[in-house]
């Protein structure tokens, strides 16, 4: 520990703390414009200079370490004078256009000038020739306001790992610009906007919408991925105008990705539902709440009588709050009397839970966003976490910077592969084989934990792994033996490890087998289950699952259901499942689940379909009744993120039209069906939730167990369908809801088929041209994008966009395997 004195205050800090950090921690303000705790010290603005007793020179406190016995003064006439001069120099070419600048009112330069500056300048002189502004779809850079603190350049490069901005030129004419001064093409995370101390970088969607002092700011949780970042929403006159991250705020500590920052405007989509709709003569027509609820209640009651309660099922939502989901399952179990309730987690989080139980005897998998820190080796398997869980991935990048060895196995070039220490470019969907190969090497070299031999099924594992010699695995994965062995050894020899992957409905490279293989590897080394970090997909995937939105939930209730409930796969893909009515809350299976043709046919065949959502989705268009739900920003509640942390979601704006929070709709419906389920407000639900789940979370004894899996290849490319199609998210979207965001659509608004140049050449496909993509299941037309990130033989598509109907090509995975699909791609001849 270091003891020093700052402004007569005795302070004790850890060794390695800078003077500035020491001061800030102790509530002593030192002005600065180029410091951010996420970045390495830069020392450019010179405002943070301090005096140290016994030293003639001034110390830049951002980069000088606190030392024992140091006596520091942060505010002396000498320092005020220097700060005044530095600010005077900055203002020489900073235009005083505060009246038309969105930053005014919350601008660091403005505030510091107010505090330290003087009213007159000695230097009304030559200004920098105003460099051209850089415009992108979401971020605008007005170079003449820039004071060259370099924060944007550094956060983009050091922290985001993107490096889209650079300092161009030297000396006085230096400007911040994208390479070659072109438009800003980047991740659109907008971190540069938050970090900019002036109005040089501003969000375009909120440009000229409101002065900072008219914005009311409220914190809530992001409605997209499972990270659970805190958004600070800026609201004026009942409308959300912007979203930003505030330093140290929430578990994301002020970090946001582009979805969280720009995607909130999906709630202002034109096809938001404003009233209930009832299908009359084949058309959905507006109806009153009364009419709609009576209609639903009558139909459900009829079906219950005619076909029994078990012919009714429901799908809950990772987008809805815990309270909404709890009410849905309660409605199903207590009012309808059916256990047929599930969600999209069946393609993702439910598989993880299943594997956890099988391998570790535990029943709740949570990640830690900070788990990458301090790990000697981080191994990422076939997952682009920078896209699915951007803020989690930031920690991976930081851990790498701090010295972790990052091994990334992926067929596609991603941000993580670019930053990785080792990139294992495997063929898509071969992750399980790779893990088996690594385990085989570990066992053969005797590098595993001997204790584990006595664990259940170790011998089976050994037997299964017999076939996974390095040669065999290299044949499957396309790696060479040396890189395989190097990676295996690096992984096993590390003192601390993290193995991470993602799994969800919108990606098809991994299935249950891959997760089981990963758990085997963890057990083989006798690592704690925490070694494996598989983040839940969406903002409330984990919450919905915990709330009992899944079948077989006898644990949740005293009543057991016979037969046990049907899962999503049963409901949507099995023609013989004897389901007559389906209640879908907050999901759009037609667009986001595989094999849409089949789903459409299935939904059309139902006697009764109710869809409760915020917008008229493709699924809603097939419903008999559509109910308007309030969006995430229009209701109170909680989300449980991938860390298992339950966070408050706040009502920040008024509901759209007659929409209501989902839980309220269900409560009203229950009442209409003659059952008072005893809930009047959120507090009631939360109380109930707390008491219902208290026993469910009691620890089950830890019993590591091996579950040997054989790699089964997915659909193999052949002559007719020569390419393997991989479904992955794109960075700017999440599910299909984000495609209703006008801001995000400015960046990507259609599904692009990414294809390697060689494959494109072979088929005569040009960049940006239309192509016909066919699989054994269907055909779609897309635009092709030639990309060197994609390996020959593979094509990548995302599923988010309703009109593209990518899921026509896919089939639902069976037996937990990955569902890669082979396709052929042909150029479309224009007549």
């Amino acid at each position, binding site marked *: 520990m270091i003891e020093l004195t700052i402004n007569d205050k005795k302070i004790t800090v850890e060794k390695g703390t800078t003077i500035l950090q020491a001061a800030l921690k102790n509530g002593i303000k030192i002005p600065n414009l180029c410091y951010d705790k996420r970045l390495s*010290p*830069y*020392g*450019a*603005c*010179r405002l943070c*200079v301090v005096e140290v007793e016994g030293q003639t*020179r*001034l110390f*830049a406190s*951002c*980069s*000088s*370490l606190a030392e024992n016995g140091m006596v520091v003064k942060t505010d002396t006439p000498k320092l005020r*004078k*220097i700060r005044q*001069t*530095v600010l005077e*120099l*900055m203002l*020489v*070419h900073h235009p005083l256009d505060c009246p038309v600048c969105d930053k005014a009112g919350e601008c660091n330069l403005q505030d510091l000038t107010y505090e330290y500056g003087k009213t007159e300048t*000695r*230097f009304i*002189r*030559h200004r920098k020739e105003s460099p051209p502004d850089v415009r992108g779809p979401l971020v605008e850079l007005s170079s003449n306001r820039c*004071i*060259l603190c*370099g924060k944007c350049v550094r956060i983009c490069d050091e922290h985001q790992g993107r490096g889209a901005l*650079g*300092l161009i*030129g*030297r*000396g*006085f*004419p*230096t400007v911040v610009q994208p390479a070659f001064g072109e438009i800003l093409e980047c991740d659109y995370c907008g971190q540069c906007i938050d970090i900019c101390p002036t109005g040089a970088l501003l969000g375009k969607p909120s440009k000229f919408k409101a002065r900072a002092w008219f914005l009311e700011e409220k914190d809530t949780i992001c409605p997209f991925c499972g990270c659970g970042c805190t958004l600070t929403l800026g609201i004026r006159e009942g409308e959300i105008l912007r979203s930003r991250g505030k330093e140290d705020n929430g578990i994301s500590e002020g970090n946001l990705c582009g979805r969280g920052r720009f995607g909130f405007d999906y709630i202002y989509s034109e096809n938001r539902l404003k009233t209930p709709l009832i299908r009359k003569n084949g058309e959905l027509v507006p109806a009153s709440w009364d009419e709609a609820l009576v209609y639903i209640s009558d139909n459900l009651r009829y079906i219950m009588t005619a076909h029994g309660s078990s012919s009714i099922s429901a799908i809950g939502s990772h987008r809805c709050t815990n309270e909404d989901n709890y009410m849905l399952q309660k409605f199903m179990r207590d009012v309808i009397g059916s256990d047929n309730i599930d969600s999209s987690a069946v393609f993702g989080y439910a598989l993880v839970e299943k594997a956890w139980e099988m391998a570790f005897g535990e029943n709740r998998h949570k990640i830690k966003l900070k788990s990458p820190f301090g790990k000697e080796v981080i191994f990422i398997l076939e997952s682009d976490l920078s896209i699915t869980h951007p803020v989690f991935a930031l920690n991976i990048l930081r851990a790498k910077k701090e010295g972790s060895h990052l091994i990334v196995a992926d067929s596609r070039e991603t941000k993580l592969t670019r930053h990785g220490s080792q990139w294992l470019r495997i063929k898509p969907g071969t992750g399980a084989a790779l893990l088996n190969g690594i385990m085989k090497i570990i066992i053969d070299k005797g590098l595993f934990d001997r204790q584990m031999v006595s664990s259940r099924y170790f011998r089976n594992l050994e037997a299964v792994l017999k076939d996974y010699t390095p040669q065999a695995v290299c044949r499957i994965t396309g790696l060479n033996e040396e890189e395989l062995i190097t990676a295996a050894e690096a992984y096993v020899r590390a003192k601390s490890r993290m193995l991470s992957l993602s799994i969800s409905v919108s990606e098809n490279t991994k299935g249950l087998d891959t997760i089981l293989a990963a758990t085997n590897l963890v057990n083989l080394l006798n690592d704690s289950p925490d070694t494996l970090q598989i983040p839940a997909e969406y903002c409330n995937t984990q919450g919905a699952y915990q709330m009992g939105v899944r079948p077989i939930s006898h644990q949740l209730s005293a009543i057991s259901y016979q037969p046990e409930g049907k899962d999503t796969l049963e409901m949507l893909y099995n023609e013989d499942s004897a389901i007559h009515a389906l209640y879908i809350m907050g999901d759009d299976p037609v667009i986001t689940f595989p094999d849409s043709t089949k789903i459409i046919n299935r939904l059309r065949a139902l006697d009764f379909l109710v869809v409760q959502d915020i917008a008229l989705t493709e699924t809603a268009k097939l419903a008999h009744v559509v109910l308007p739900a309030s969006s995430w920003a229009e209701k109170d509640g909680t989300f449980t993120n991938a860390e298992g942390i339950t966070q408050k979601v706040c009502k920040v704006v008024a509901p759209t039209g007659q929409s209501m929070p989902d839980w309220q709709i269900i409560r009203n419906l229950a009442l209409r069906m003659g059952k008072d389920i005893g809930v009047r407000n959120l507090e009631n639900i939360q109380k109930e939730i707390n008491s219902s789940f208290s026993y469910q979370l009691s620890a089950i004894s830890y019993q590591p167990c091996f579950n040997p899996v054989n790699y089964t290849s997915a659909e193999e490319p052949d002559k007719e369908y020569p390419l393997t199609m991989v479904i992955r998210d794109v960075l700017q979207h999440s599910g299909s809801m984000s495609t209703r965001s006008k801001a995000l659509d400015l960046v990507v608004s259609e599904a692009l088929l990414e294809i390697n140049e060689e494959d494109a050449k072979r088929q005569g496909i040009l960049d940006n041209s239309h192509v016909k993509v066919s699989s054994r299941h269907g055909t779609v037309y897309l635009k092709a994008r030639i990309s060197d990130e994609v390996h020959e033989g593979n094509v990548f598509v995302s599923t988010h966009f309703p009109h593209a109907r990518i899921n026509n090509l896919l089939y639902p995975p069976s037996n937990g395997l990955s569902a890669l699909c082979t396709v052929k791609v042909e150029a479309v001849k224009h007549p």
Partner: protein
Amino acid sequence: MERFRANLMLCAGTGCVASGATKVRAALEKELKKRGLKEEITVVLTGCNGYCAQGPVMSVLPDEIFYQSLTVEEVPKLVEEHFLKGRPYEKLMFKEPEKKLAIPLMKDIPFFKHQVLRVLRNKGLIDPEKIEEYIARDGYQAAAKALTQMTSEEVIKVIKDSGLRGRGGAGFPTGLKWEFASKVQSKVKYMLCNGDEGDPGAFMDRSVMEADPHAVIEGMIIGAKAIEAHNGYIYVRAEYPLAVKRLQMAIEQCYDAGLLGKNILDSGFDFDLEIYQGAGAFVCGEETALMRSIEGKRGMPRPRPPFPAHKGLWDKPSVLNNVETLAQIPLIILNGSGWYRSLGTEKSSGTKVFALTGAVNNIGLIEVPMGTPLRTIIYDIGGGIKKGRKFKAVQMGGPSGGCIPESLLDLPVTYEDIVKTGAIMGSGGMVVMDDNNCMVSIAKFFLEFTADESCGKCVPCRVGTRILLDMLADITEGRGKEDDIETLQDLSRDIITSSLCGLGQTAPNPILTTIRYFMDEYESHISQKWCKAGVCRDLCTFFIDEELCKGCGACLRACPSKAIIGEKKKPHKIIQEVCVYCRTCYETCKFNSIKILPAGAHEPKHMLVETKT
């Protein structure tokens, strides 16, 4: 090895090549062949001899006869006289200025007489492209000694005891720097050489790298041994192609000779060395910026601490030494610290190389013991001011330095004495100025350089130097205001106090020293709008003093603008409307009749009327 009756050591430094050394070489070889002397006499191309003012120059060994200002036309005569008839050719010898007597021997010529060559020990004596010649002059003995007979601590102790200070400018004790780095535990360390010489007019390091590349490499091997580094880089600006070429050859020769690479001289010590070419940004001479540049990043300084001895290149402990510093290392190891201290002063030991330029008669590269008075350098070695003009100031330390006036000419050249004047020792640029120089313009010249070379990272340097430059431009163009001097000083001090790196911390020095010693010039520029040196075009008018003018017509003929009229033997006149303020008449007139007055003085309407009639 072949033996010759005589070796003609022809300087092939950049200066002599520019004045025709290549053609002279061809002529010499042709003539020697013609006269059948090819087997007996050989021409050797050497690195910079230093006496650039008289180039191309050549010394004849073993006679030590020195020839200067060689021309192709004189070559046959020279060969005939000296090598056939055995009579040294007086016409091409140095002439003692007063009695015009020829001085045949190099060591008797004043330019050489006052110098002590340590760094430049091999200049003009060896072919820099041959490792054998370096070895023949005791080359690599020091490296062998350090690697096989000394421990790291012993090496560091000798260097520390020698009092050697970094020759790059700041004068940090080299031994101490090595000691810091040697104490840091790390498998990977770097030994770096700074050859990014960037001061305008300075060419010390280039000459050393061109004339004696092996001395630098040997210094690096010893340094690497001292700090236990096994990798090194020589950072050279790409504008020095000859230095790059020679260093590259030298490195390859070292690898072939087992002096670089694995297990050097069977000592078990490994050291790999390569060249990194910089793109020529001045700021890359700053150590942290230089390291960033080698890393392939934008060359910008970063705050210290951490100091490079702890976290330098690629965050590994690194030592960066200047070319001249490194070239001294082998001598210190071989001869000991006592020998090194025998020259110089207590706090500034040894010798220092200067690039002497400007208004002196003998411009060139010189090496003198520390503590030599400025007057000796300028008047004895430099041969005084050109054309017998009056000395005004000497600029030391380049853009980071300052101007030292006549009153301080007896100052001994040491780190501590120079700093007291407001200038710095710097890397060794020494620009002598006579009374033709306007000190405000001089300050402006250096600020133009620093403002342009500022990397743009920290505010005081990026914006501050530009403001200083703009203010100086205003003063020299007649827009100066009363309080400008005060503002210049105030801003200069703030820039010095608050800048991030050495560039900004020293950039205002030229302004502060010129204000300190030549305040009256600033004042006359601002309040009288008068540049007394006639340099600032907007602040002067040229007149012919009718009483002094003899009507010789020299100015009339010289005027490029035909602005001077007058009949022979009658006083001439300058037509102000067409005068372009080029100063040609002022420099031409032998009778001191051209007067420089403030701008717009004596609006000469009557003269115009006269010319019309």
